[in-house]
């Protein structure tokens, strides 16, 4: 795509670091909203469509999809060191925050009140995951095959407690192939 290259803005490594720090520190419960706000609306480094394309690529790949986006953006503007600057901004601060939490947890985690609060919060965390499942289920086609793959993944990993690598190795190629055939 020639035209996407033509208007590439000049972005320094420091700007990458600062922008991804801002995204990371403002994002509670999902970074994608803040990434779009910073990169498309605030800095105008990307058009809406370009951003969507990069996000889609990030989603196809393993790992946190906003991290994948972070690497792509940093690399596009300033090569490997740009990617490193963006990743440092995106992961550095949350790393420090969770380590701070780890210190507090080791000090006070055994206190009964803390333990009770954490139990209540974990029930909420389970509910957030369950809500994600329900949202995904509503976009699944009304056909038996996707539901079968979903059920097999759940039983293999959640009930039989088989290693994820085996389950993905068995299911993923089969599922992608079936989706590919259906498309033709």
């Amino acid at each position, binding site marked *: 795509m020639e035209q996407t290259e033509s208007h590439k803005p000049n972005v320094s490594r420091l700007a990458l670091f600062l922008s991804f720090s801002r995204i990371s520190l403002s994002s509670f419960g999902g970074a994608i909203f803040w990434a779009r706000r910073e990169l498309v609306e605030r800095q105008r480094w990307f058009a809406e469509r370009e951003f969507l394309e990069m996000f889609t690529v990030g989603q196809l790949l393993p790992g946190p999809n906003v991290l994948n986006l972070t690497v792509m953006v940093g690399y596009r503007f300033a090569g490997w060191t740009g990617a490193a600057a963006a990743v440092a901004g995106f992961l550095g601060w949350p790393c420090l*925050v969770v380590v701070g939490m780890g210190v507090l947890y080791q000090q006070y985690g055994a206190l009964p009140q803390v333990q009770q609060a954490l139990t209540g919060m974990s029930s909420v965390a389970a509910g957030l995951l369950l809500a994600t499942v329900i949202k995904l289920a509503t976009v699944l086609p009304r056909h038996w095959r996707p539901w079968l793959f979903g059920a097999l993944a*759940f*039983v293999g990993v959640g009930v039989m407690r088989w290693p994820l690598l085996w389950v993905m190795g068995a299911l993923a190629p089969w599922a992608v192939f079936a989706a590919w055939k259906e498309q033709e």
Partner: protein
Amino acid sequence: MDRIDLGGLFLHFLILWFVAIGGPSTILPDIHRYLVDVHHLLTNTQFADLYTLAQVAPGPNAMYVTLIGWHLAGWAGAAATTLPMLVPASTLTLLVGHLNERYPDAPIGHAIRRGLTPITLGLVFASSTILMRAVNHDWRGYLITLLTVAVVLRKPWNPLWLFAGGALAGILGFV
């Protein structure tokens, strides 16, 4: 409790991050299996506590992996679980990003996404059942979980409020 083998931890997370299509919640069941069931490095409660604490931190929700690593073995442990996350991100992402720029409408991309979505669904469901079994000891815990689901599906509230509500319910002795 086993001794911590940092090299083994690093390798295990490296493999997991390569199959974490669908995001960091899909590898929770396997992290739990490896650390709680196989190696007895964490209890069920510790695992749930660390996962949940990281959910109220800023940044990607993958940070629970960093917190678990830090809890197990300090900075070296955090590095062993977090650095492998960067390997697929910096190799596959750039490769696929490049291919995608060249062939923006390749049907294989659609097939991958459509094929893997149901698997993601099954894995995230497994994650939620593992957390529920770890912390919901009776109907009251399940009630909080179901209330959370009901609120999330209806209201666009920030999840931090829900965590605050859960913490309050816990302190007041509801769970």
